[in-house]
């Protein structure tokens, strides 16, 4: 127990890093998901092809490997470019935090693409017709009807994506982002209590997962209040 208290400041700092990483990735996930779903539902064969390729790749490659590709791939490219200016430069990389956020967002974004697409398809066609019949433009129909209906339908699936997203933030310790797993690794080298340290990490993740689950429950309650009231 004493070991945990000794390292509590570091764990707190690590947790903050993870939470930041989570929200930065989340924003990107929503962008990828919306772009991907729109592309998959579009009439353009090129857009559909690109979106399909994106989801197949990002869902089929291990997230860990994808992270390594994004981080080391970009580092090698960047280093080569830098060397053409100054041959003295030995290594240059994208900040691991951003490489990590980007890689994770690709994976979860690919899953979100499928969820959003399914949700867009699940919207009752009659409602769209009713909105059109009222004279709303295509953009207004999208903004006021399709989007609000879509996110409600996507909510349960998206909640699961958020949990995956949170858990994937553990991976970035491998490329040196100082999240809680990184903290535990450092602590272990000093106090030789790996079981205690890693279990602490597990329980921090469990607590954060719980926060997500509870938050999603609240959001669902708000989003589905029109259904709940019905009976």
């Amino acid at each position: 127990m004493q070991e945990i208290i000794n390292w509590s400041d570091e764990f707190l700092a690590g947790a903050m890093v993870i939470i930041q990483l989570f929200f930065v990735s989340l924003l990107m996930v929503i962008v990828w998901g919306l772009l991907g779903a729109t592309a998959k539902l579009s009439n353009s064969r090129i857009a559909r092809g690109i979106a399909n390729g994106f989801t197949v790749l990002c869902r089929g490659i291990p997230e860990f490997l994808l992270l390594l590709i994004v981080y080391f791939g970009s580092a090698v490219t960047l280093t080569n470019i830098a060397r053409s200016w100054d041959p003295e430069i030995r290594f240059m990389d994208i900040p691991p935090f951003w490489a990590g956020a980007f890689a994770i967002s690709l994976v979860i974004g690919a899953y979100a693409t499928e969820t959003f697409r399914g949700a867009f398809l699940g919207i009752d066609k009659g409602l769209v017709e009713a909105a059109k019949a009222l004279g709303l433009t295509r953009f207004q129909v999208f903004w006021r009807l399709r989007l609000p209906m879509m996110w409600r339908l996507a909510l349960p699936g998206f909640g699961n994506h958020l949990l995956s997203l949170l858990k994937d933030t553990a991976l970035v310790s491998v490329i040196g982002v100082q999240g809680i797993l990184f903290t535990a690794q450092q602590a272990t080298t000093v106090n030789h209590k790996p079981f205690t340290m890693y279990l602490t990490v597990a329980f921090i993740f469990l607590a954060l997962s719980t926060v997500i689950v509870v938050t999603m429950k609240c959001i669902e309650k708000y989003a589905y209040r029109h259904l709940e009231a019905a009976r």
Partner: protein
Amino acid sequence: MTFDGSLIIDSLPRLMDGLWITLRLYVLALTCGTTLAIALVLMRISSKKYLSWPVMGYIYFFRGTPILVQLFIIYYGLPQLEFIRTGPLWTFFREPFFCAWFALTLNVAAYTAEIFRGGILGVNSGLVEASKALGMTYTQTFRKVTAPIAFKLSLPAYSNEMISVLKATALASTVTIFDVTGVARKIVAETFAPYEIFLSAAIIYLVLAWVIQNGVRHLERRISRYAN
């Protein structure tokens, strides 16, 4: 920044060695985990709280924490405990492959138990009532009616889980196992050619995922021969 094709050819034999380890880890974890999941789900749906609650806690822990952290607890963490390091279990837990298999199995079991539970809950209660009305016992009904239908309902989610497990095997490389990802990381460290090597590894995983997906689709089509 040139793309070195010969490097890929040179690395191929080592990547194939890695593939063999990945496949062994994958098949062992998936089969053992699924078997354990069946036992867990039977406990989970039991009306006896001393059976269902521990399973609930187990599932909650394993689904709420990253596999990487679980793996670190088992591989790096357990040796801290005296009875592991000095006891008979040490023969197993000092082996990285065993630890990776152990972590993945526990994980598969937790996720799959939840998937199977969803399938069981999805079975039309009218069918259960109908077999009750025919005089079948609870166990008979479960074996002959609930379980087969639940399995079919679970299949789509289970096939996603199969892909997730495949991707999770890549984490084994963090505990010194030379699976496909482990081999790739080693070669990249030697050659500093991440594109060629990591992309080759990625293609191996994509092919595996494709094979698994098609296998399941084939199975699904066979099962769906009877009515929905």
